């Protein structure tokens, strides 16, 4: 551990020949670093602030309604603004039923598309298929609604609903006049809208399953479907569940397309042909016309309920998806 004996070394600070030729700005970067940090921290805190703002606005402005009706708000069936009577049950019912109907229709189709895209389709087809599913996700809600009003609804009214009434009317789900407009239309258009998100998450978690899993099952002599079922779907189960729940969250909050075809009647009915109303739709339709503080507060309370429900559902979904993809940064689904 020896070296050359210490002898005076060259000066450094500001006196060497090169320093005069190149005058570098002095290291005052310390202040700038702190300012920069503060700026980006401020932006990040803004996200926290926004959520806080959301909660604050919803809670404070729904107080009036909460104090007036308490918990019965969510159990009452009577939505009568004229007489200041507000019961939100029909909206809850409508939201739940339309979303569940959407799930029943969307999940098998979405998983089917995902399975086909990842496991069955020829390589050259995969890109285009994924692209077109993403394209479905890019269509704005109002355009879905427009198409639903003028294409889907007449189709339902003229062909589908009479058929359903004739052959499946005994279930009690398909009774009443075939308006076209109603819960069934809402469920169908919602299904179309949530297929892309369920499908793309399913695809994501399916591709995350390692190739060894697939090969292991195939080596046992399984058919392709058996390999998919046992080697892929079983492992991706949690993630697929997460994708489904994410789709549910999306359906619960969907506004425009549903508003345009659900009929906007605050009533609970068993038949899927009947018009209904969802939480998002009542806000969309009545908020700007709401007269009176209680009316507005009631609508905001509906909004608070919607916010809480979708938040819980989305958190659950995120946790499930993270458990499979190990917390990689979330992809934004357009």
């Amino acid at each position, binding site marked *: 551990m020896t070296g050359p004996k210490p002898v005076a070394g060259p000066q450094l600070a500001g006196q060497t020949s090169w320093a005069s030729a190149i005058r570098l700005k002095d290291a005052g*970067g310390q202040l*700038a670093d702190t300012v920069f*940090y503060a*700026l*980006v*921290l401020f*932006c*990040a*805190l*803004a*996200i*926290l602030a*926004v*959520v806080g703002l*959301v909660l604050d*606005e*919803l809670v404070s402005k729904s107080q009036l309604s909460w104090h007036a009706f308490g918990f019965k708000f969510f159990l009452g069936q009577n939505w009568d603004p004229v007489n200041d009577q507000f019961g939100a049950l029909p909206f809850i019912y409508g939201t739940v039923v339309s979303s569940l109907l959407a799930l029943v229709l969307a999940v098998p*189709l979405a998983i*089917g*598309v995902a399975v*086909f*895209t990842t496991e*069955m389709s020829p390589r050259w087809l995969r890109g285009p298929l994924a692209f*077109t*599913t993403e*394209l*479905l996700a*890019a269509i*704005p*809600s*109002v*355009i879905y*609604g*427009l*198409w639903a*009003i*003028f*294409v889907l609804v007449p189709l339902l009214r003229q062909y589908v609903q009479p058929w359903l009434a004739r052959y499946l009317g005994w279930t009690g789900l398909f009774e009443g006049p075939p308006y076209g407009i109603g819960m069934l239309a809402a469920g169908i258009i919602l299904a179309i809208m949530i297929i892309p998100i369920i499908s793309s998450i399913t695809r994501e978690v399916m591709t995350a399953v390692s190739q060894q899993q697939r090969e292991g099952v195939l080596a046992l002599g399984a*058919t392709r*479907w*058996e390999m998919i079922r046992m080697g892929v779907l079983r492992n991706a189960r949690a993630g697929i569940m997460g994708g489904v729940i994410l789709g549910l*969250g999306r359906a*619960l*909050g*969907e*506004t*425009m397309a549903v508003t*345009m075809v659900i009929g906007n009647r605050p009533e609970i009915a068993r038949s899927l042909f009947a018009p209904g109303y969802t939480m*998002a739709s009542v806000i969309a339709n009545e*908020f*700007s016309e709401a007269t009176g503080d209680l009316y507005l507060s009631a609508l905001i309370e509906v*909004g608070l309920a*919607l*916010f809480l429900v*979708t*938040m819980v559902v989305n958190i659950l979904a995120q946790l499930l998806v993270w458990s499979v993809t190990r917390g990689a*940064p*979330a992809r*934004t689904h*357009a």
Partner: protein
Amino acid sequence: MPEDPINASSKAVPQINLRRRLVNAAVTFAAVGAVILVLTPLVAIFGYLVYRGVGSVNWAFLTQTPKPVGEAGGGMANAIAGSAFILLLASLIGVPFGIGAGIYLAEYGRNRFGDAIRFTADVLNGVPSIVIGIVAYGIVVLTQGHFSALAGGVALSLMMIPTISRTTEEMLLLVPNSLREASYGLGISRWRTTLSITLRTATSGVITGVMLAFARVAGETAPLLFTAFGNQYWNYRIDQPTAALPLQIFTYAISPFDEWHRQAWAGALVLIVLIVVSVSAVRIAASRGMLKGAN
């Protein structure tokens, strides 16, 4: 005699094999069916948009304001301009905050606090857009006393911020750490490194993320229903109700007038074309490396 295990094979289990193969075929058939069923509405929607809309998208449509009810003609020019105006406001707020938050998360936020922010951003992403509208109503419309373009812009910016912050973070994390080290090694300060090296390398990805967020909010209607509210006329003022393309489509679609229905299709076609074009343009520019940044 015990069966010869090596030669026994398929003679003993032909039925099971056949059943399994049939199931396999059936599932394949079902999957293909699912694909067809899913692609059908896509084709149908785009088809109808073109079929019902193309005839009505003409110069008059693109340059005139709506005519009074009952009169034929008129257009959605003010709605197109209004959308542009509102989106500009939304971007002015949403993009800086979103990118700033993304920089924080990538460069300073690899810790629990950063996780909390990430989580909150994801929660915010899932909030129904109508609820965002309520919030913007509360903080802008009630304060100003009337509907306004600003309120609409704020509502949309609240939706852009979490999306942009997550994509920005993702893109910045893709920049290899060796580049940051090279920069520090030259004595370049941290903030300069983050902006001139890290962010610059990730530029094309960040811009793509911004455009995707932009395209997503461009088609949003619900948050504008009681913020921007809509307007029959031109509006350039930030504090007045403003028309927007999705709003106009909605109003016309649910109206009882055929003339307005026709224009709704035209407006929808214009909207979807604008969205698809802007997203594709950005994707193409990014892949051609025309956006400054590394591939």
